């Protein structure tokens, strides 16, 4: 396969995947609104496009299967087959199979394995039940871009009808076609609401050639058919003829454009459009009265087209009416058109380069400071400001809304709900919240786990819900929002909540909590993320919660994130995942201990205070400070990392906070803010606690990035152990 075709194939694969995703979304939407013609049309077009493009690449397995799906969809569109749950289920499975076909046949260039072939056979039989066996009709003709149908904004006219303008070419009849027969065929696709025959082009008797066609028609047409089908009617007359097809609710400006493009005078056409109902009564009155008053000094009148455009008030009302009808899918379609497809690795490369630029920039700033040359320092500081902006801009390129990930769960919730026999509704909020694409890709699995868990074990069966006075329908909520440099994703269910006492008992049995200590509830709940809880025994005891929760936690920790859980008995459970916005570059706070430098993520730094002499002495006995009357556990970084040499004369405390807990990090030196390009640590350091990565300083030295959440946890734990052992002593 030549390189060009190979690239085109990649594009096809990417598009097919998107189309299948759209198709799935639309099918799910159809479940709640089975008669939505727009959605049915969208599904049909998706299948049609996949089939058509697959044909171009000679991907016969895709063509042959998709053809059946398309056929069934065509019948749905024509109203011959009624949407019902079984059909949607079959179509959803067919969509899955098509995705499999795309992945195997198109992407890997391989043949289906036996399982898949068996599955396809089963689907074919089930689809056949919906197929029209009498004849195989396939007359859809793809026409030029259907953008007008999907564009948003601008004034839309109110009519539900298509408007078709036809001016037949002079040779139509000589070529053996009768314009009237097109009209007859058209009327089989819907209802011709009104028609005006245009014969302005008919010349005087002497010049008229009886075998030439001079006719035209302005037609208002009511039909569920899509544009391709309608345009297909006139396929054979297209050559030499003027054919304009305006879909229902086209923009007013498109009508004006139509008026302009036709040979007859604007006024005459405007009147025809109005009398046939293509334009509304309001538009008629406003347009015509304006036309009379705005007669120009030279006697001519303002062209109706201009008036209609100027008529802002009408447009506004029309927009209001039409906006309601704009469906989500249309919006997302028009948004899509603004995107450029860029290969992900190009973007990664760009971000890597920006990372290097940041490091190089830091080097320049450092040198400028050393030579204490003021103009040079100034230039360096301007440059680092710009670098910072470039960094933010480049990172933002990789930000994607989490909505796409969330929407995938519609299907999961539907399928799992059905499997479990529970009626569960998925509510999505904060879908616009953006986060790094690499994070999005990796969060899918943990989320899936949590969602399944919540559905399986969190939300009770309908009978129990009814008994406890809850609505029978369970609600699962996915929410996302930004919070101080991280994104928080919440999975909320309105189920029975966790059994606190059971978990506490379990934790004590396993020696995770000392027998005489009772930690706060939150801490108890979070015990289920401990590895010890993901055992079979725990599943039965804890009504199943805890299955693989340690895996979830490990995945999220790998993304430098944290996960916590809150629960209220009888009211439900909330799992919060907190993730850094990006995995590449962060704002850091540089601190020094001895000769080493460390980075604390700036977002987590709360304040910096000096470690007083009193505190320093007290620190040898207790591991907490008095921060304005608050107990602040702390970690001596010098001790923690066993840095050589004695302590500096003065020490500082960096107060960091993470997930609502505060701790102090005692360091020798505060060195200020630093743009930190995160470099991963090698595998051999993966078990190292308290370090999450490394970076390169302007001087070329390596600085370690502190894993603040784990340090805070460590400090807090040690502090509570300290307290508890003392309690035991007393």
């Amino acid at each position, binding site marked *: 396969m030549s390189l060009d075709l190979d690239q085109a194939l990649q594009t096809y694969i990417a598009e097919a995947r998107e189309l299948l995703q759209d198709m799935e979304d639309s099918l799910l939407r159809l479940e709640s609104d089975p008669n939505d013609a727009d959605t049915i049309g969208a599904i049909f077009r998706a299948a049609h496009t996949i089939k058509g493009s697959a044909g171009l690449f000679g991907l016969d397995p895709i063509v042959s299967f998709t053809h059946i799906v398309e056929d069934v969809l065509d019948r749905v569109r024509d109203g011959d087959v009624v949407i019902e749950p079984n059909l949607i289920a079959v179509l959803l499975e067919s969509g899955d199979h098509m995705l499999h076909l795309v992945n195997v046949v198109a992407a890997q260039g391989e043949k289906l394995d036996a399982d898949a072939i068996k599955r396809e056979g089963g689907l074919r039989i089930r689809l056949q039940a919906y197929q029209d066996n009498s004849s195989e009709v396939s007359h859809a003709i793809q026409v030029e871009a259907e953008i007008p149908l999907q564009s948003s904004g601008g004034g839309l006219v109110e009519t539900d009808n298509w408007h078709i303008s036809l001016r*037949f070419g002079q040779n139509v*009849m000589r070529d053996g076609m*009768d*314009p*009237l*027969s097109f*009209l*007859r065929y058209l*009327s089989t696709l819907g209802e011709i609401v*009104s*028609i*005006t*025959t245009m*014969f302005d082009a*008919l010349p005087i*008797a002497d010049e*008229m*050639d*009886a*075998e030439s*066609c*001079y*006719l035209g*028609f302005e037609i208002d047409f009511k039909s569920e058919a899509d544009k391709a089908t309608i345009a297909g009617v006139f396929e054979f007359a297209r050559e030499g003829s003027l054919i304009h097809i305006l879909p229902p609710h086209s923009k007013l400006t498109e009508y004006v454009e139509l008026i302009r493009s036709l040979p007859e005078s604007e006024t005459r056409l405007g009147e025809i459009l109005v009398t046939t109902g293509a334009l509304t009564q309001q538009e008629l009155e406003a347009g015509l009265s304006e036309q009379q008053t705005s007669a120009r000094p030279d006697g001519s009148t303002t062209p109706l087209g201009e008036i209609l455009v100027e008529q802002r008030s009408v447009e506004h009302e029309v927009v209001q009416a039409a906006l309601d009808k704009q469906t989500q899918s249309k919006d997302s379609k028009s948004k899509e058109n603004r995107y450029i497809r860029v290969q992900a690795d190009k973007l990664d490369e760009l971000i890597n380069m920006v990372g290097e630029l940041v490091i190089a920039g830091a080097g320049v700033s450092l040198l400028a400071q050393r030579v204490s040359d003021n103009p040079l320092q100034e230039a360096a500081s301007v440059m680092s400001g710009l670098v910072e902006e470039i960094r933010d801009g480049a990172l933002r390129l990789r930000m994607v809304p989490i909505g796409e990930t969330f929407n995938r769960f519609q299907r999961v919730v539907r399928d799992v709900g059905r499997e479990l026999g529970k009626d569960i509704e998925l509510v999505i909020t904060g879908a616009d919240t953006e986060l790094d694409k690499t994070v999005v890709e990796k969060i899918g699995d943990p989320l899936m786990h949590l969602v399944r868990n919540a559905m399986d074990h969190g939300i009770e069966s309908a009978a129990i819900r009814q008994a406890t006075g809850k609505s029978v329908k369970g609600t699962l909520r996915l929410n996302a929002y930004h919070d101080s440099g991280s994104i928080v994703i919440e999975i909320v269910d309105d189920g029975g909540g966790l059994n606190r006492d059971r978990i506490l008992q379990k934790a004590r049995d396993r020696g995770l909590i000392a027998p005489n200590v009772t930690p706060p509830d939150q801490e108890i709940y979070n015990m289920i993320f401990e590895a010890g809880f993901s055992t079979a025994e725990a599943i039965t005891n804890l009504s199943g919660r805890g299955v693989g929760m340690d895996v979830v936690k490990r995945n999220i920790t790998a993304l430098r994130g944290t996960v916590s859980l809150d629960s209220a008995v009888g009211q439900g459970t909330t799992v919060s995942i907190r993730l850094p916005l990006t995995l590449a570059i962060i704002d850091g706070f540089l601190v020094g201990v001895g000769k080493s430098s460390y980075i604390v993520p700036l977002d987590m730094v709360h304040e910096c205070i000096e470690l007083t002499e009193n505190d320093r002495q007290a620190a040898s006995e207790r591991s907490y400070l008095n921060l304005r009357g608050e107990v602040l556990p702390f970690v001596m970084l010098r001790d923690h990392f066993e840095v050589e040499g004695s302590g500096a004369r003065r020490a500082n405390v960096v107060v960091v906070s993470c997930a609502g807990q505060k701790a102090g990090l005692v360091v020798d030196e505060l060195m200020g803010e630093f743009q930190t390009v995160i470099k991963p640590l090698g595998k051999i350091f993966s078990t190292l606690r308290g370090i999450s990565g490394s970076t390169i300083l302007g001087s070329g030295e390596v600085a370690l990035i502190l894993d603040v959440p784990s340090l805070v946890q460590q400090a807090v734990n040690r502090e509570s152990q300290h307290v508890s052992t003392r309690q035991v002593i007393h």
Partner: protein
Amino acid sequence: MPISATNKNGQSLLHIDGDMTIYTAADMKSELMTHMAQPCEREIDLSEVSEMDSAGLQILILAKREAEKHGTSLRLTGHSRAVLDVLDMCNLASYFGDPVVLSCNENKGQ
């Protein structure tokens, strides 16, 4: 000849027999226009028109327009089923403005 003309009280009565289609249009046009050139009131009987297409329709429109131009009147009478179908489809009955009568026979189909 598909068009036969008779004169009745100074009014010209044209009778069209057969198809008004692309195949007959050229002849039909020249013949009809010769008749139209005479300045008198005119009636065209369409009861024997067996088939009509766009070309035929154009001829009728042309005749109507010529008549208007010369200030004479043109009435169409006895529309056959084929003619009515076309005028209906194109929404042109009001343009010609003639009373349209359906006889029982025609209604039952030819």
